[in-house]
């Protein structure tokens, strides 16, 4: 199957109607990402794989990842797609090797990690 021509960079948008492709169409109706991603998982492009064949949303999602680690939540917000849809897109990109992902460190007892809390406190105080 020949890949369709994709003249535009972003999603197909109409000024009045908004997004012309329904969110779940973008991911072929899938509702579960193939890789477990949290809203605060960080992704970073590997730069190793071309994703031009995957469609404009995948390309746009990869473009939003920028150069440094970016959170899934931020990419979802920039794409203006539900987080679930974004997670599926990003997991595709992880699967094909275009992205590396790292899950957030969940702290069920944050008070156990005093050095972490001190670092957070220092960082906040620098902003005052």
């Amino acid at each position, binding site marked *: 199957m020949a890949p369709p021509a994709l003249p535009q960079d972003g999603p197909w948008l109409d000024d009045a109607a908004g997004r012309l492709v329904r969110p779940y169409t973008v991911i072929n109706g899938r509702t579960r990402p193939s*890789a*477990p991603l*949290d*809203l*605060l*998982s*960080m992704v*970073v492009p*590997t730069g190793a794989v071309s994703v031009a064949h995957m469609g404009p949303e995948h390309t746009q999602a990869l473009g939003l990842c920028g150069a440094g*680690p970016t*959170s899934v*939540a*931020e990419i*979802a*917000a*920039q794409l203006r*797609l*539900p*987080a*679930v*849809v*974004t997670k599926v897109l990003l997991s595709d990109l*992880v699967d094909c*090797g275009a*992205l*590396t*992902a*790292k*899950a*957030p*460190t*969940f*702290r*069920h*007892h*944050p*008070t*156990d*990690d*005093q*050095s*972490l*809390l*001190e*670092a*957070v*406190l*220092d*960082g*906040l*105080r*620098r*902003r*005052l």
Partner: protein
Amino acid sequence: MVYDDGSDPLTAPRTSGTEGRDGFPDALKVLVAGGFGVGKTTFVSTVSEIEPLSTEELLTTVSEATDSLEGIEGKSTTTVAMDFGRLTLDERHVLYLFGTPGQERFWFMWDELSDGALGAVVLADTRRLEDCFSAVDFFERRGIAFVVAVNEFDGSYRYEPEEVRAAVDLKPEVPVVLCDARVPGSGIQTLVTLVQYLLTQTPAPAPAPSHGAHS
């Protein structure tokens, strides 16, 4: 797979002190809760270093058995928007602030949001103090440390923090601060109070048995 290690990235334990070595910053989470219109979005946006963003979660909800339409599944999909902001603390730590959905019917979402959170800020409006009760209850039940920040709205009567503490029936150690959600320094000072409070808390005596961790 191109995860940075071979284990399940959601459950893999990470050793303290190694964060950032792989080039990924440590993403931390603080929740901003409170009743509708109490200033959660304002708080998040004034503290955030980026334009506040909003992400949508699609949720499948099973409605209460109040409808008598037999044969119709009481199931629907709802979109809930969550405001969030970012605060880069240093090269290794990034703090994300999540404004929790105000409506109580979305509270089951809080479980996911509160999982792994450092703590929470409960915003209170003294004109409608009861609006913050459910958030206080939620964090008390989950054992998530929180501070109560009284958002000082123009025209609202000024209460002393101790008056608010008594009215909400807070434990004596829970900090109550006054803040103005429109002022970035005020919001950051509230977060400083939260982290200082976390530092005074004694570490958990032992890992929860359900995690199966060894001490």
